[in-house]
């Protein structure tokens, strides 16, 4: 029997009963990747032999025993490449495991491959990868979203059971919405980032791509928790997220922020999200309208803070300790300047320049400090909204997947793809995107559920209630 469309709990049951061996799972997945990935291009690197060896050694009694997980090419797995889809890290081999990888290994998971992304996680379409664009499994002429587009296409295209991604401004939730999977961005500090290549340190968070909400809860239980190696991870107990999923939404108050239903939102997206809100009403949730008055400033704030932080974080790629170094540099400044010019792609250069500018003498106060202050106001909007409700319901993306090449010439248009996801990162709270329908052209639509800090339990319960009542997550892509 073919295992590739099973959920992780179904897979575990078959592995535990002996109906399926871990090695067969890897074989089936590897054949699926071989057949489909030349079209989808979700993976940058697949090592089936290594995965088979890990699968043979896996203890199937563990929570993820023998389950293969795909990893975004920005998280270090010892012995694997980690290029961040950048030429500057071509040939790099990780000398250590990220903490999330250590935790997944301890839970029995195995690693089959690394997924494509926008270079250094900067982008919303995966078109900024140095190794080519990933395709959307629902329409190969369209982008899968980004920056974790490879992880989204792999899970949405049934080339992976689950994948890790990272979300700095929507890079898990937006591609999950566009590829019809469940994309979870946990609260800032919930998951250790040790071993994640940093983009914007006050915003980055590791999270998951799965077919169902239950699997997202299961993976979060494994990867969450304090890590002495990441001082921004918080020492708080990790709940059993899978245990509270089935409690339903009766008696919960769900907020609908009026600023998220704006002009420019695709009518089919709006209708699907409004229908989802009706479904929650039907299930006994109380729907309340709330206001997040500074929503319109989120994208502007983000492109100041994220670029400022990236200009500092990417200073480490200088040709000295790892990665590419230019040929025959005449002195050290020549080496820095040419190594970085040859190694980074256009979007990364743009963001480094913008970030350097907003932090430069004479502009720091006008840009960076002002953006920080507006960021606090955005966080305060959410704090006040969560005094009136338990979770928020919004569209994940204003439009379904757009065509490849449609927005590459206009960075600002591309930035607006994240208009509904960015504020969650600025506020440090949690969000999840779940499938909530399809357009007439059969393009997936995502519903975003936003929770307060440490609100994952209720947020996932809300997500699960909708998922169980609707058929969207069971639909299979044409590929």
């Amino acid at each position, binding site marked *: 029997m073919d295992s590739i469309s099973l959920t992780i709990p179904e897979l575990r049951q078959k592995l535990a009963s002996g109906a399926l061996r871990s090695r067969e799972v890897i074989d089936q997945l590897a054949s699926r990747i071989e057949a489909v990935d030349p079209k989808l291009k979700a993976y940058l690197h697949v090592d089936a032999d290594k995965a088979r060896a890990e699968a043979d050694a896996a203890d199937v009694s563990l929570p993820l025993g023998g389950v293969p997980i795909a990893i975004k090419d920005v998280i270090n797995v010892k012995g694997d490449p980690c290029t961040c889809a950048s030429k500057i890290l071509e040939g*790099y*081999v990780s*000398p*250590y495991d990220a903490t999330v990888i250590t935790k997944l290994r301890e839970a029995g998971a195995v690693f089959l491959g690394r997924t494509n992304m926008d270079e250094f996680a900067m982008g919303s379409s995966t078109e900024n990868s140095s190794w080519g664009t990933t395709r959307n499994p629902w329409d190969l002429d369209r982008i899968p979203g980004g920056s974790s587009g490879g992880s989204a296409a792999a899970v949405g295209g049934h080339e992976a059971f689950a994948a890790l991604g990272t979300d700095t401004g929507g890079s898990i939730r937006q591609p999950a919405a566009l590829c019809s999977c469940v994309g979870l961005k946990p609260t800032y500090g919930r998951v250790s980032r040790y071993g994640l290549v940093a983009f914007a340190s006050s915003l980055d968070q590791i999270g998951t791509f799965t077919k169902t909400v239950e699997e997202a809860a299961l993976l979060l239980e494994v990867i969450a928790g304090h890590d*002495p190696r990441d*001082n921004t991870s918080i020492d708080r107990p990790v709940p059993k997220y899978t245990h509270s999923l089935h409690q339903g939404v009766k008696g919960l108050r769900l907020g609908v922020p009026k600023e998220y239903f704006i002009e420019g939102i695709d009518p089919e997206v709006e209708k699907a999200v409004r229908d989802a809100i009706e479904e929650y009403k039907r299930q006994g949730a109380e729907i309340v309208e709330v206001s997040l008055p*500074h929503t*319109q*400033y989120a*994208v*502007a*704030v983000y*492109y*100041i803070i994220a670029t400022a932080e990236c*200009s500092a974080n990417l200073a480490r790629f200088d*040709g*000295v*300790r*790892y*990665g*590419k*170094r230019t040929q025959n540099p005449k*002195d*050290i*400044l*020549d*080496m*820095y*300047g*040419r190594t*970085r*010019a040859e190694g*980074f792609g*256009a979007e990364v*250069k*743009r963001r*480094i*320049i*913008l970030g*350097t*500018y907003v932090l*430069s003498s004479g*502009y720091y106060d*006008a*840009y960076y*400090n*002002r*953006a*920080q*202050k*507006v*960021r*606090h*106001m955005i*966080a*305060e909007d959410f704090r006040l909204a969560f005094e009136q409700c338990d979770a928020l319901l919004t569209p994940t993306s204003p439009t379904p997947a757009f065509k490849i090449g449609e927005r590459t010439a*206009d*960075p*600002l248009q591309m*930035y607006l793809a994240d208009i509904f996801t960015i504020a969650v990162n600025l506020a440090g709270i949690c969000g999840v995107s779940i499938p909530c329908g399809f357009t007439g052209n059969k393009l997936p639509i995502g519903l975003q559920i936003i929770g307060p800090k440490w609100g994952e339990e209720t947020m996932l319960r809300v997500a699960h209630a909708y998922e169980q009542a609707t058929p969207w997550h069971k639909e299979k892509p044409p590929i």
Partner: protein
Amino acid sequence: MADTASDRIDVTYVADLARLRLSPEEIATFQKQLGDVLGYVSQLTEVDVSHVSLLGDADLKNRLRADVLQPSLPVTEALSNAPKQDNNLFVVPKMVE
């Protein structure tokens, strides 16, 4: 905030600060694109931030841990991705004559 002509970003100068050697074509393209982005972010000048502190209301405390020696990456592994190395050290072009 900077949306007047005199305040416009000087990409050549900033690229030098960022140790990025750009081509003339890149400079021209980025000058236009980043001008658009800066025009967009200038909407933040509308917001009254006079009552907000730079650190917000966050309850920020230093989080300290015991300073205990622990095993770390062995030197050979730390050097395993170095473009050039010698004698357990990273090698770079000469910086001072």
